[in-house]
C-alpha cells in the first residue's frame, strides 16, 4: 500500500507501523464517575466495519508522525490521510 503522508507525500506502507482504530484517540475522561466502564469500552470494544475505517499509522521509518488514515477495509482504497495531531486537536483533545 501507499500512504499519502500529508507532509512527505506518497510513502510505502512498509515505512509505517499500524496501531488500529482511530477511536483510540478518544480517550475517556479519567475523572468521570463512569470512568471504569468508559475505559473498558474504550480499550476493548471496536467496530469492525467492512468499508471505510479510520485508523492509526505511525511513520516509524520516517518523520514519526502518527497519521489518521481513512481506508476501505474491502478494497484498501485510502480516501483521506491527516496528521493525528491535527485530528486529535479537532476532537478537542488539547483542552
Amino acid at each position, binding site marked *: *500500500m*501507499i500512504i499519502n503522508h500529508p507532509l512527505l507525500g506518497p510513502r*510505502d506502507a512498509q515505512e509505517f*507501523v499500524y*496501531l488500529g482504530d482511530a477511536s*483510540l*484517540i478518544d*480517550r475517556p475522561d*479519567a*475523572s468521570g464517575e463512569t*470512568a*471504569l466502564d468508559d*475505559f*473498558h469500552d*474504550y*480499550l476493548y470494544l471496536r467496530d469492525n466495519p467492512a468499508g471505510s475505517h479510520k485508523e*492509526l499509522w*505511525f511513520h*516509524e521509518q520516517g518523520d*514519526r*508522525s*502518527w497519521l489518521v488514515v481513512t481506508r476501505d477495509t474491502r*478494497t*484498501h482504497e*485510502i480516501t483521506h490521510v491527516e*496528521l*493525528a*495531531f491535527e485530528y*486529535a*486537536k479537532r476532537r478537542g*483533545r*488539547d*483542552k
Partner: protein
Amino acid sequence: MSQKSRLDGGLIDRSRPLSFSFDGKNYTGYAGDTLASALLANDVRLMGRSFKYHRPRGVFSAGSEEPNALVELRSSARREPNTRATVAELFDGLEASSQNRFPSLRFDALAFNDAFSSFLSAGFYYKTFMWPAAFWEKLYEPAIRRAAGLGRLYGKEDPDNYDKGFLHCDLLIIGSGPSGLATALTAGRAGAEVILAEEDFIFGGRLLAERNLLSEQDGSEWAATVISELQSLANVRLLSRTTVFGQYDHGIFGAVERVSDHLPEPISHKPRQVLWRIYAKRALLTAGATERPIAFENNDRPGIMLAGAMRAYANRWAATASQDIAIFTNNDDGHRTARDLSAQGVNIVALVDCRIDAPPSTEFEVLSGAQVVNSRGRLGLKSIQVQLRDGSMKELACGALGLAGGWNPNVHLTCHKRGRPIWNDKISAFVPATDTDPLLRAAGAAAGILSTHGALLSGAGKAIEALKELDISARTPILPKAEDAPVNIAPFWYVKGGKGRAWLDLQNDVTVKDIKLAHQEGFKSVEHVKRYTTLGMATDQGKTANIGALAVLAEMEGKTIPDVGTTIFRPPYTPVSIGAFAGGSRGKEFRPYRLTPSHKWAEEQGAVFVEAGNWLRAQWFPIEGESHWRQSVDREVIAVRKSVGICDVTTLGKIDVQGADAAEFLNHIYCNGFAKLPVGKTRYGLMLREDGFAMDDGTAARLAEDHFIVTTTTANAVPVFRHMEFCRQCLWPGLDVQLISTTEAWAQFAVAGPNARDLLQKIVDPTHDISNEGFPYMACGEITICGCLRARLFRISFSGELAYEIAVPTRYGDALIRRLMEAGKEFDVVPYGTEALGVLRIEKGHSAGNELNGQSTAAMLGMGRMVSQKKDSIGRVLTGRPHLLREDDYRLVGLKPVNAGDPILSGAHLMNVGEIANAANDQGWVTSAAYSPHIGASIALAFLKKGDQRLGEVIRIVSPIDNLEIEGEVTSPHFIDPEGERLRV
C-alpha cells in the same frame, strides 16, 4: 548425439551447440533451446512421473503453465527442484534429472499406486488416514511424503546471492507479445517512463511461435525491430527473464528477474535473481493466453500435449514430439497447428474435430464430428482410438497428439485484488472484467482479443487511454498488417462415456471422476472442490486444469460455468524461489545488528557476546584460567560487590523530553508522580499500559525545569518511544513537549561498586563535586570529564551498590571505556557483562524483562502503591478493576533453596508442600534464577499467590521437564541490602 526430432528453421542458433545431460545421459541442443525443446529434439518424450499415481508423463506445454515436466536442475548446493523444463533455458553443461521416481524414470517402483488408484480417489487423505490420530505424524505423513513427493532439496545453503530492487514508472507492461510491443512502442514514443517485463528470454511472446507474417516480416523479426527501437529510448526499461508475479495495492507489482538462471553459475558480483518491487502509475496486462486441453480416457501419456505448444516447438525451436502427429480440437486454432506442423514436414495422421462443421483441408485428413476416446502406449503414446461421427471406432497410430480446447486469457493479475473475471461466450473463456481496476488494464489475448491484428490495435489503444489519465498524449504508431482470424469454437471439455480415468489436472492427478465424486459427496462450491481434490494446486496452479474441472462441476450442478465461478487467483502467478524473497536477509544479514561503543574494546578483551534485541552485548569477560562461564560471572559479581565494575549500558533506550509541559507529560505516561521531581534528580518510573499491566520501567532524570532524560529497557526502546509519541500527538496534543530518541547519541557505562566514586573522581573534572553530599543518591547532572569533554552523570544503581551511569557522546565511548579501565587499575576494576548484570539485579530484587512480561501489574511487582491516584496517567483507571486488585493475586517474592546445593531453574512452578503437582494446585512460577555468589546458593525471583504474606514459608519448586523438584524458602526479593544503605554511602 543426433537430434532425431529436430526440424528445419526456428529461432535457435545452430552454430552454437550446447551439451547437457538428463538423468545422466548426454545430449546436444542449441543456443535458444529450452530444456524441453532440446529433449524433444532428441526424441525424449518421457520427462517425469505424476504426483500421486506415478504415471509416466511427458512435456505438456511450451511455457510457464507446464504441469508435467518438472525437473531438478544442477547438482550439489545449486540443485533446484521442481523447475519446469519448458522455461529452463539451455546452457552448456546443464545437468537435469527427473523427479518422483524410483529407481528410474522408465521403471518406477511406486507406479503400483496407479493400480490401486481406486483407493486414492478425491479426498483420500481425509478418508483413509483419519485413525488412529497418532499414526498421522509418525506413519502416514512420512510415507505419503516419500511417495507423493516432488523434487528434493540438497540440504546445503544456496551459494548464490539474491537481491532486491525498487523501480518506478508511468506504465508497466506485462508481457511482450504483439499487444505488449504495440503498447510499449506507443508509450515509449510518447516519452512515458515505461517498463516492459517479459518472462521469456526473448521478447516477442507468441510472435516467436507463429508462422504468420506481420506485413512482409516474420513476427520474430518485427519484434526484434521494435525491441531495438525501444532499446534506443532512454525512458524505456526492458526486463527479459522477468515474471511479474503479483499485483498488490496502489499500483505496486512484484516481479522476479532471473538474472543468472541461464548460466551454470552467476558471473562474479551478479545475483542469481532479483526481486523487483515496481511502483507503477498505470499498468497494462499483455500476458497473452494459455491453451487448454480436452480430457478423455488415458489422456496423460507422454506425447499428448497442447496443440499450440506443438506449434511453438515446431516454429520456434524446430523440434517435434513425433513425426506422426494427430490433433484433437474443438476450434479453428487446432487447424492452424496442423497446417504449421504439416508445413514443417510433420505427418498429420488426422485432425479430429468434434465439430460437425469442421473446416476441410487439402493437406491432411479432417475427421469432423469425431472424438478421441482413448490412447495406448505406456511410456509414450503409440496410438489413439477415435470414435467417428457415425459411432464407429478407429485406431490411429501416432507418436503425439495435440489438444486444442481453446485459449484462456491470462487474467490472473487482474484478479489479485479480488477482481472477478467475466465469461465471454464468443471465445468460451473468462476475460478480465472491464473498468474494475483503474490502474491495471488488459489488452490483446489477455483481454480475450485473440487475433494478432486485434492484439496490436488493442495494445496501442489501451496505452493511449492509460497515458491520457497521466496527461501524456500518445499516438497510435503505424502497425503492421497481421492475421485477423475470428474465433470459431464449440465448447467441448471432456469426452463422455469412458470407463477409465480422464485427467483434468495432470500435476495433481485429478480426474473427471474425482470432480464428480467430490460433487456427489456434497462439495459444490468451486473453492471446496479445489481443496478436497487438490485441483489447481502446486507449481502450475491449475493453469491448464481449472477450466475443465469447472465445466464438469457446472454440468453436475446443472449450471453454466460463469454461474459456478472460478477459484480466486492469488499471487504468485508462477513460483518464486524463497531465496528471491529473502534477498540479502540471510544468516547474519537476516536483520541489522548493532554494536555497542565498547564493542571493539570488549572484543580485544576476549568477551563472549550475546544477542539482545538487535544488539550484540558482552555476556561475560573470561580471563586466563577460567574454563566455565560461571567462574567468570561469579568473579565479576564479587568484584562489583567488593570494589568496582564497569558495564556498557548504552543499549538501554534514551528519550530526550523537552518543553514547558515536559513534567506534566511524564505524569501522564508514568503511573508514579514526576511533576515535583527537582531539577538535578532522577526517579524510578513505572509505565503501565492502558489496561493496567506494566509496559516498561526505567528512570527519568530532570536536567532542567523543561528537560528530562527518560530511559527504557533495551528491548522496549522502540515500542516505548512509539507509545510516547502516541500519547504526545494523539492524547495530549495541547502539551508543549517534544521527544527525540537519543539512544544512539550517547555511550553510557554503569560504574558500580564501593569504589565507584573513587574511580570516577579520577576522570571527572575537579570543578564538579561528586561527593556523597554534593552528588547524593539519585542525583543527575551535566558535567565535564577528562578535561572539558561534556558528559552526563546519573547516580542510579541497578546492582544495589554505590553506582553511577556516565554518558558521553557516542564517538567518545571507546575512549571512555579505555580511560575508565586505566583509571580503575588501582581498584582492580573489572568489566562485567549481561550475565553478571543479571545476577546483581536478581540479588537486589530488581525487575527486568522476565518480570515485566506483559502479564504483570504494578501490584504483582510489589509497586501497587506507586500508582498515583492524584493524577490521570495511562493505566491508572483500569488498574482499579476488581480482578486486578485481588488479595490472592501473585506477588513478586524471592526464593532460596532449603538445601543450599539445590539449583533453582527459571520457568519452574511452585506447589504447596503435600499437594499433587498439577495445574489446579499451581501457586506461581519462577521468573528469574541465578547462582548468587553473595548468598552462596541459587536464588530466584518468582510470582507466588499471596506471596507477600508468605515470607518464610517452605514451598516446592517443580519443573517436570527438567526432572527438578526441590524445596525452597519464600523470602523478600531483596537478597542484598534491603534497606538500601549501600546505595547511599
